[in-house]
């Protein structure tokens, strides 16, 4: 996946106001099976960046290519994990997971076994018949993860997926993502404001400037797989975290 000189200018909400430039000249690449995190101060256009890749919005400058081809309309090749759980409340956990393949007319015999396997992989075995309202916040995000992975996406896009969870649940979810990544090896673009999360999960971290968002720094995370949450305690981790935080703080306080 590749972004070249991507920019996004929003038309003004009210007459008389200036147009809002959210992104400027963003170059970003994610190799196959690579996990890339994008961090930046709030309001820097991280989510806009993700919406462009997902196809929910169109860039006003530059090009985006996925798998070497220009971007089409939103589709299951770029599955999104939203910050809000965005589950279909009237369907059971299993029906949420199979929602995509079922309505795309895929064979039941093909997607049902995959759904069962994914539900097990995200630790929701025994919850297949429950409704989303019966699940905790962390469990809902796990349903979203399974609902995205069942499409075998070229790229998995995560928009602050654990931002709304408490610290304990977030740590558990990060562990789960590390485990799932070890099994399914997705290509993953993760947008987050959580520096620790970015280092823990990704192979490379992009740091963005404040609005209009530009890439100001790219950093390679050297830790080998399989990783675990224990990394957070290491001196190397602390050094990485410090340099990223410093780079972010420059942005918050001009």
């Amino acid at each position, binding site marked *: 996946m590749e972004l070249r000189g991507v920019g996004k200018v929003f038309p003004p909400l009210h007459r008389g106001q200036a147009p809002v430039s959210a992104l400027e000249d963003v170059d970003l690449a994610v190799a196959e099976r690579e996990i890339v995190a994008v961090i930046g101060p709030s309001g820097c256009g991280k989510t806009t960046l993700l919406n462009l890749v997902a196809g929910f919005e169109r860039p006003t400058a530059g090009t985006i290519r996925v798998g070497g081809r220009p971007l089409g309309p939103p589709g299951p090749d770029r599955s999104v994990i*939203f910050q809000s759980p965005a589950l279909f409340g*009237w369907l059971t956990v299993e029906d949420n997971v199979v*929602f*995509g393949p079922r309505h795309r007319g895929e064979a039941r015999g093909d997607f049902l076994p995959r759904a069962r396997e994914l539900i097990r992989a995200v630790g929701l075995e025994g919850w297949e018949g429950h409704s989303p309202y019966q699940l905790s916040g962390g469990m809902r995000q796990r349903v979203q993860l399974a609902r995205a992975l069942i499409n075998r996406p070229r790229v998995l896009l995560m928009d602050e997926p654990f931002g709304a969870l408490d610290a304990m649940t977030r740590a558990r979810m990060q562990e789960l993502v590390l485990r799932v990544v070890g099994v399914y090896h997705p290509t993953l673009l993760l947008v987050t404001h959580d520096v620790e999360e970015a280092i823990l999960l990704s192979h490379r971290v992009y740091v963005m400037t404040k609005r209009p968002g530009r890439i100001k720094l790219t950093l390679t995370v050297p830790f080998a797989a399989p990783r675990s949450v224990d990394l957070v305690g290491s001196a190397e981790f602390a050094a990485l975290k410090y340099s990223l935080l410093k780079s972010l703080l420059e942005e918050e306080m001009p």
Partner: protein
Amino acid sequence: MKPGHYTLLSFGTIAGILLLWYAVTALGLVKPFVLPSPGDLGSEFLVLMAKGYAQKPLSEHVLSSLARTFTGLGLGLAVGIPLGLVMGASRTVFAILSPIFSFMRPIPPIAFIPLMILYFGIGEFSKVFLIFLAALWYVVLNASAGVRAIPQDLLRAAQNLGLTQAQIFRHVIFWAALPQIMTGVKTATAISWAIVVAAELIAAQAGLGFMVMDATTFFRVPDVYIGIIIIGLIGLTLEGITRALEVSLLHWQGR
């Protein structure tokens, strides 16, 4: 408060009213032609059951009121739900139609009864048409508000999973708006029942509203009361049915 006490208090109110009613009539505090006693009402009810009212069995009056209500309501829902969904989903359609609905909403539907009679006469059509219109307003407004309240992420999730616009409409928008659609259905049902009675008061040959009006003209006060009580009981039943429907359709809300 214990649940048992709650029920006890509520039943106490009903028993108290019945007792008071019995007392004022038995003691002769009000004249029987003003307020008949519970006993008189009971025996008159048996007479109505046996002989009917105005050469028509009591059941016919009940059924003609219900038939008008359900025809008008059914048509209102059949047109109103899809129309409301489209209005909620399309800014263009909303911009075109919302002035009509916004203007009509605050007007009590019974204000149109004389006009309906003028245009369509006193037959079935004018009553059913009025109920249809009233049901339509409430269902359209609720359904379109329901669609506009759907979180953007939910629609994007469906789009992201590869559903076509038609599939999103049927499998996501309809269900996500259903709680508010049901609010509209409940209101529309209650309003429809109120309108049928009002319309029958003014012009009808059968129906509970007709019975109440006709009995008043002839000073048949017990029949007036019986008519009102039946109207009330049917209203309660309709409310119970719509509420049960809501519970069974929306159990996934976890309320």
